[in-house]
């Protein structure tokens, strides 16, 4: 934990991952997927964080305003691999690019505790 009450800017943000039901504390300098990997979860991916596969894509099911807007690389990957253009389906995000400013709930089946079924 790097954030404190006295340092609200650097406080981590709570992201709940369904259906596995795990709360992640996502640091300001990391993505949702990076936070998941840091605490020992496995997250489906082919490119391991380079926005070149969209396998890590999740759905934001609550708290969408807390998600930082898509950057260029994420928009490009969603267009190429999901057929999603800029204005479409704002809830679909790449976990490897997604940063958060307020708590949200995401859905990503396939996220597992490492070494479990």
């Amino acid at each position, binding site marked *: 934990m790097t954030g404190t009450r006295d340092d609200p800017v650097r406080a981590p943000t709570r992201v709940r991952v369904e*259906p596995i039901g795990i709360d992640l504390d996502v640091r300001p300098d990391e993505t949702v997927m990076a936070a998941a990997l840091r605490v020992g979860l*496995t997250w*489906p*991916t*082919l*490119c391991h964080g380079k926005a*070149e*596969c*969209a*396998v890590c894509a999740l759905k934001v099911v609550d708290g969408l305003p807390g998600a930082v807007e898509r950057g260029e690389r994420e928009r490009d990957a969603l267009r*190429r*691999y*999901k*057929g999603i253009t800029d204005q479409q389906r704002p809830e679909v995000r790449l976990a490897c690019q997604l940063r958060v400013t307020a708590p949200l709930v995401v859905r*990503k*089946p*396939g996220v*597992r505790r490492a070494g479990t*079924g």
Partner: protein
Amino acid sequence: MTETLPATSAPLEGIPTNPDVPMRMLAKERFTSREFLAAERDRLWSRVWQMACRVEDVPNPGDFFEYRIHRQSILIVRQGDGGLKGLYNACRHKGRQLVNGSGTVSEFRCPNHAWTYDLDGSLKFVLSPDEFPCTADYTLGQVRVETWGGFVFVNLDPDAPSLLEYLRPVTDNLAPYGFESMGMTLAVTIRMPCNWKVALDPFIEAYHTAGTHPQLLTGIDDVNSTYELFGLHSRMINPLYVSSPRIGEITEEAIFEATIEQLEGIGFKGLSELELPPGMSSADFFADMTRSMAEASGIDLSGLSRDQLTDIHCWLLFPNLCLQATATETLGWRVRPDGDNPDSCLLDQYILKPMEPDRVTSLKRDFYEDWRSYDCGLVLSQDYENLCNTQDGLYQLGFEGVLTASEQEKRIAHLHDVIDRFLAGKSWAQITAG
């Protein structure tokens, strides 16, 4: 001339290979040389069985359908007795083409000098016959026509084995799908700026899936796809409703949701209510769903094996017909050279579905000069983007030759091996013996 043609394989000095399943390098001239294309025209296309149309394209006596390969124009004609004839589309007088496209006639009357032929090609009228005393046997040139699975095939070689002999054992494997009881729901032709053999690639290997279609890896196993050779022909099986090991181990629920999303993406409705029962695999769930949907539609899937029910069975019927068969529909691609230009081909795309006989009908072939003007969906657009960005690369001085993966692309190497048998002018016995 044979010895001057680019060889299939070149030695791969300095590149480690598995001697049991060698990686191969295909000379790039096989895809770029006009001489090579001409050799294929003269020694390959003049001898192979090639799919010309469907039987429903010529249902009634007098119906004709023009099939073109290189400069050859062949008319598939439904006869009065219900049989089919293949006729070269050239009046015996001056060579004028008699008809084009498709349609219905009672006879073929040459628009130039009115010479007239029966549906079987026999000459029945000559203007001023006293000036042509020796035309009694001037029937239109005949081309062999045979059918399988509702497909009409032609062969320009009078000495070729029968179609069924040529296709065996493909026909036994494909019989349970019942192609003869299917109808087309899509038939388009696209001009693609690449050699015809380049255009076959995405339909005969799954090696490109991770690079080109990573979004599919949650519901298709590219790594455990299998590749088998059947004489001239070959098959790939892609397991569906299982995930690729390349994205790590994931849950059945993830596979299930990804499949639902993809089905909704191609137009299925009302699937979001479905849930995967605990302990059930996605593959079992969708196998059951496929079976019950088919039963509700009166479609008999009882002949399909379990893997035919769930997996994609992708056949290449040598040299140019790909049938990507699933339990509910088959996607077909046929690729032909585009005249004498090695840098262009004609890619025909079909969708075939089981259908009540009275709904089966001929479809007009829509033609697209540019695939981007045709809504082919995300996956095919990813493939077609590759196709139209490959041919130029083959010409680069710094590009040595086309490499084929030893296992995952062995069907490509096999395709070229079989082509070489034809280019070497081998007998049918030698060709079919391998």
